[in-house]
Structures are given as C-alpha cells and as structure tokens.
C-alpha cells in the first residue's frame, strides 16, 4: 500500500473541470515534484492532499485513510509565506508548535522552535518581524514552521516561485539538505523543471488545463549532492529534462487550438516622427516598401 495515494481524483469549479482522473502513488520517504503550467490546477491538487479541498470524485488517502480535513501530519508551505505579520519569526513557529504539542512543557516547545530555526539557518533572526526579512528568509520561516510540527509529509506549493534565481538555487540546496536529514516524504509543486531535477527523486508532469491530468512519472537517477554546473554533462540530466519538457511542451501537455484566418500585412515603412507631419501644407504620403525596394536596386 502506498504511503500517499490519489485515485481517479476529479475536481471542478463552477462547471469548469480543473483536474480529471488524477492518479498518483507516493512511497514513504520519497521526494516527488509535480511540474506544470500556472493555472493548470497544481495548487488545487496539493490543496486536496492538504485537506483544504475535497475532490468531487475519487479518493485521496494517506496511509490508507481518506483525507477529509487539514491536519498537522501534513505540513504545508505556501508560495506567499502566509506568516502572521505581527508575530516575530520565533513566535510564528511557536504558534504551530503550541498547537500540535499542547502536552509538552514550555521548555520542550521552546527547544523545538529553536531546533527548526537552526535547521533553516535563522537563529540570528528569531526576534525579527516578517516585514524585516527578505523573501527568501520569510520562506525559510515558513519551512521551519511546517517542519516543527513534525509532519509525516511536507507539502510545498511553489515555495520558491516568488524568489529570484540566486536565492532560489540556495533554497533548493537547503530543501534537499533538510530532506536528507530525516528523509520525510515531500511533495513539491513547481513550474520549473530544473528545480524538480535538482531536488527530487521523481518528477510527475501535470498537463495544462482545463481538465489537467498527470503524465508519466520520470525517475531522476542522479546521485546527490547534485551540482548545477556539472549536471550539464550528465546524460541522465539531459534525459530527464527532455522527457519532462517534451511532455509538457508537446501535444500531451498543451491542447492547442488553431484558427485559420486570412491576414494582410500592408507593406508600409514607419514614419520618422522627428520630421514635421506637413511641409508647406502638403501632407506626407505613406511610404511603401515596394517603392523603397526599387530605390535600393538603382543604387546597386
């Protein structure tokens, strides 16, 4: 029995089918990336795993039990960080810890907060408010908060989408480091194939909507730690990249509609707007490219 199982999951909003026949099985300890277009239904999919949404039909099961509501065994990290702006970094994390471990002593809870803040390298920033932090640091707080609940599965919904390329690379490496620490099950939602390849053991492409569904899984057989630079000469990297991109950009990933229309492009040359529009009352006439072409022939 797989650890997390989605079977024939369908979801519609207001008559529009967002997801159809989504089937996915994830084993315990796996790091799986779901790569797809924005607007395809990636967030809908992960929200159903988190229990924030219920599927219209089909089932979502964690260890054989149907998921019906959100719970602390599934830690979620959102793209927009979702931190409480009036609480400090440590208080934001403590909020989750206090909820999940009410029977612990306050020392135990404080130790828990400190442990996870240290894990994401935020110990020096524990007393800061979210607005005093950069985007990358806010997302670290969000990761620490999710991890401190000691969830069975970590759900990451485009956690690095709002960050610049450099910060994203740093945090990707950090996510992998944290995952290697205790090999918790991770589902990462992203639109960046390379991010999936850098972090995951398996990539599942999600086709474009409406009616998006999961494509064939691609295993990432690349030894860790993975280095962005030397990866380029790795045949496995090229293979995975091609397989995922070909599916997503090819006919399976995107339904394309074509229209046939007769178009005319007048063969005109642009006017120089620095010259006056009228000269002694005479209006300028349009310059056609054909006339211009005649001129060049004469010169040659």
């Amino acid at each position, binding site marked *: 029995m797989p650890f997390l199982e989605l079977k024939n999951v369908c979801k519609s909003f207001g008559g529009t089918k967002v997801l159809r026949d989504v089937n996915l099985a994830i084993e315990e300890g796996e790091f799986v990336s779901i790569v797809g277009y924005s607007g395809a239904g990636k967030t809908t999919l992960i929200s159903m795993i988190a229990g924030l949404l219920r599927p219209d039909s089909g089932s979502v099961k964690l260890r054989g039990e149907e998921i019906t509501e959100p719970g602390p065994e599934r830690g979620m990290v959102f793209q927009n960080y979702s931190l409480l702006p009036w609480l400090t970094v440590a208080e934001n994390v403590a909020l989750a810890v206090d909820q999940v471990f009410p029977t612990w002593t306050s020392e135990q809870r404080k130790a828990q907060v400190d442990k996870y803040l240290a894990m994401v390298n935020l110990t*020096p920033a524990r007393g800061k408010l979210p607005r005093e932090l*950069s985007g990358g640091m806010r997302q670290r707080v969000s990761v620490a908060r999710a991890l401190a609940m000691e969830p069975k599965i970590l759900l990451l919904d485009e956690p690095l989408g709002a960050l610049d390329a450099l910060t994203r690379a740093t945090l990707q490496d950090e996510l992998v480091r944290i995952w290697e620490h205790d090999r918790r099950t991770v589902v990462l939602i992203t*639109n960046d194939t390379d991010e999936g390849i850098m972090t995951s053991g398996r990539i599942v492409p999600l086709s474009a909507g409406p009616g998006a569904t999961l494509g064939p899984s691609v295993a990432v057989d690349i030894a860790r730690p993975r280095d962005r*630079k030397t990866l*380029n000469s790795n045949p496995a990297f090229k293979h995975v990249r091609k397989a995922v991109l070909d599916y997503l950009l090819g006919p399976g990933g995107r339904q394309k509609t074509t229209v046939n229309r007769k178009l005319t492009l007048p063969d005109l040359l*642009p006017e120089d*707007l620095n010259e006056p*529009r009228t000269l002694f009352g005479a209006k300028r006439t349009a310059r056609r490219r054909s006339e211009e072409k005649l001129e060049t022939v004469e010169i040659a």
Partner: protein
Amino acid sequence: MIDLKAMPAPKTRRNYLELSQLNKTYPSPKGPAVIVNDFNLEIAEGEFVTLIGHSGCGKSTVLSMVAGLTDVTAGGMVLAGKEVTGPGPDRGVVFQSPSLLPWMTARENVMLGVNQVFFTASGNERLQIAEYYLSVVGLADSMDKRPAELSQGMRQRVGIARAFALSPKMLLLDEPFGMLDSLTRFELQAVLLELWKRQRITALMVTHDVDEALYLSDRIVCMTDGPEAEVGDIVTVPFPRPRDRVAVMEHPEYYRLRERLIEFLEVHAHKKRRVAFPTGKSVSSEAAA
C-alpha cells in the same frame, strides 16, 4: 551583367548598433556611483544579442540607455548611422511587465503606437497591421479583451505584438519573460522567435535565464557583477536557424554552452555573497542579490 543569385541578400551592416564607452554614473551621498563603465558593443544588422548577468549588474541600465529612457553620462550610441539621444519609435521595447493601458483593449493598445508611426497610411491599413501582429502572437480571438481579462502570458503577447507592429529598426527586450512561469516562458520564446524570423529585426535582450539566452540569441554577452559592470565573456551561439526547441536542446554544443554560462554566473555570484546576518541591521546575501 549582374548575377542576381550571387548578390548578397540585403546588405547587413556589421555595426548597425554601436555602443562606445558607455558610462552611467549616479550621484550619491558617498560620491558618484558608477553603474556601467566603459561598455562597448557592436551589433550587426539582423543579429540577436543577449546581455546576461545577475540582477543589479547594470544590464537593464544599458538597455534603458539604448532605449533612450535613461540619460547617458558619457559615451555615445549610433543606430543605423544616426546618433541615439532620446526615446523613439524606431526602437521597440518589450518590458518585463507588459505596461498596457488597462482601459484599452488589446487591439487599441497596439493601435496606439501604430497610429503614430503609420499616420500616413489609411485607417484600414493601420487596423490590418495591428490585427496581423496580434494574430501572429496567438491572440486572434482575444483582440477585444482588456488587459484585466488576459492572463499574464497573454498580456506579454500583446506587449510583443505592440513592439513588432511599429516595424522598429531595433527591438529591445528587458527580461521579457521574467514574470512568467518557466513553461509559459518556453511558449512565448517560441512566439517571439516565430515573429522575429519573419523580419530579423536587430534585437538586444536582457535576461538571466541561460536557456532563454541560448535558444534565442546569436551572441551572448556576459556581464560581470556591478557596480562598474563590464563585459566579461562573449559566447557565440552556433545553432542553425530557424530554431526549434527540441533540436536546439539536442545540439551537441547545447549543454556545453549552458555549463559555461552557468559557471560564469556562479563565479560572479559567489564573489558578492556575504555571510547571512553579520550584524543586526544588514540585509542578507539574497536580499542584496
């Protein structure tokens, strides 16, 4: 007798755009801050050149100076034999955010520039121009929609159509796909290339996406980190045109060049990296990057 076949097709000028000793200095309380120093670049007619570098290295400043949107402190620019001083419709700009007028439809947004540049043409011809470009970028059925009704990717398509519709001498693209997700980005790159191959407008693009640079350009100019950014490395991209994403990615040189570019960017990233939180108020390395 002149053998027409042996004659070279339209004569390409080696130095269609010439940037010489460009310098941009801003006054600051600590004395003048040099952003770009002694920047030299020559672009041939019909060439697609990309400036690549990290955020803050000054690559957008260079583009903005060519567009005439930022004043040049020192140095000069010549486009098609004329000195460039201010902004003008002979340079079509595609911005990172499409900058469309929200109360106008896609067609009206494109018509705005077309009406200026082709004021001598008939109304019907101007409409044909706008509709032609909007159709080619894939918006044949969405011309009457306002920006709010369009997705981010579709808005950027309008931005691309608007720039091409002016038949500019030069196309300037400032991280045109930076706000899009990586898959939509691939799609729009194909749209841009499709349009570009029809006219081969000389283009200068700024990006930090290595794949984008390799897919689109003839030449990639790597800029070192600012301040005082300069040209670090120039990579010639050998892939034959017209290009197709699958073929480009399977080209034996593709991943070798990709590695070279990533290495360049990594070297220049680590140079600037600082330890997070050395003091209380300092920004971390990533905030500065």
